[in-house]
């Protein structure tokens, strides 16, 4: 219900005292009321649109920054995991297999 979709402002106009505009959602364009964000947006800005109303401006720099931080973190983590996995398999190779010692013949 509180679904809000980010879209890019394509045009802005005055409609009998109400600031309206056309917003582009990945190729689909819709008429949107921009009254609540009129003071802070321009053509090309991203807004979150809910039931035909822009309810907030998307801070592009922040969106980009957060994503980059998270991405970097996950990539580092990925490296950590790979190191851990490599370490685990090494120690496995070093430790004698108890099954093998007892001669059960069970695979690891």
């Amino acid at each position, binding site marked *: 219900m*509180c679904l809000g979709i980010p879209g890019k402002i394509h045009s802005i106009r005055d409609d009998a005292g109400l600031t309206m505009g056309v917003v582009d959602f990945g190729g689909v364009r819709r008429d949107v009321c921009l009254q609540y964000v009129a003071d802070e947006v321009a053509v090309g800005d991203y807004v979150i649109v809910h*039931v035909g*109303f822009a309810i907030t401006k998307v801070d592009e720099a922040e969106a980009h920054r*957060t994503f980059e931080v998270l*991405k970097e973190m996950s990539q580092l983590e990925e490296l950590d995991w790979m190191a851990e996995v490599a370490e685990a398999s090494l120690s496995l190779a070093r430790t004698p297999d108890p099954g093998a010692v007892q001669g059960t013949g069970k695979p690891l």
Partner: protein
Amino acid sequence: MRYLSEYRDADIARSLIARIKARATQRWTLMEVCGGQTHTIVRQGLDELLESAVEMIHGPGCPVCVTPLEQIDKALAIAARPEVIFTSFGDMLRVPGSDCDLQQVRARGGAVRVVYSPLDALALAQQHPDQEVVFFAVGFETTAPANAMAVWRARDLGVKNFSVLVSHVTVPPAITAILEAPDNRVQGFLAAGHVCAVMGWEEYEPLAAKYRVPIIVTGFEPVDILEGIGMAVEQLETGRHEVMNQYVRSVRRQGTPPARALVEQVFELADRQWRGIGEIPMSGLRLRDEFAAYDAERKFGVSDLRVTEPAACRAGDVLTGRIKPPQCAAFGTRCTPERPLGAPMVSTEGACSAYYNLAKYRASDAAEAVS
């Protein structure tokens, strides 16, 4: 699409899950109060992936689900009138009233139309001056600015055949009611990103301080939700209880002041019934007296309608986290999305519907794997 698909990145999600699990020294209980978040959490299986670290309770975050039966019955009574074109968001059409739903009213010849925006309903009123156009104004704070604008604009333009049936609810009183319940288990909250996009987060600060719970303003994509959960777990592990903002790209401390201002001019706080929960003091909005001419309840004389909710539906227990949907005896048997007993099974954002669809999805996946 920009600012959407990035936050569905699987590598980032995996890394966040690993971090949360590594950080949690005990299993924490968190609640999201947003149907969109519930949908993502259940659909993506985030609750299952985090099971050892966090229990997610799905709170009363779906406005369709908490709309009380009597408001639905009022809608049905108004929609059945011959002079009325009744307009609504699509997800309200199948919410069961005492003896039918809006879709059935339409099948019997009632003029019921789905609109995308309340401004579309207002435009319809201008196109049909000889009929009464009523809009079912449901929703949380996210939707209130749109509904407030439709009423304000109707007065501005002198449109007299337009009115709204208001069933607005607000989030902070619901959080308070949950925390005040004697059997409350919730230790931290994810606050709904788009509610806060409008309202900001100042009103959550006294709640976090009084009840000593972290409240994290959180977005809707899997990465947003996992980051929000991670921030809550970090606070719980370090004994803190603050309001923090995960959804920085869309939410500012003050929200969107012009939207708040118009909501304040058109609506005032009022006691509201929540389906399955009961009355929560000052938890809803109603039109101010100066907009009485646009109040469909007064226009069509349905203000005094009172009804009792059916006992078979345990929506209240689901919405307050006492049970998970599959624990309800009617789940998937007497209550399905095709024949719902209660609203949480109707809306795709309802917890019951989310669990039902996940089970169906998995069953078809398993059948495909076998064949």
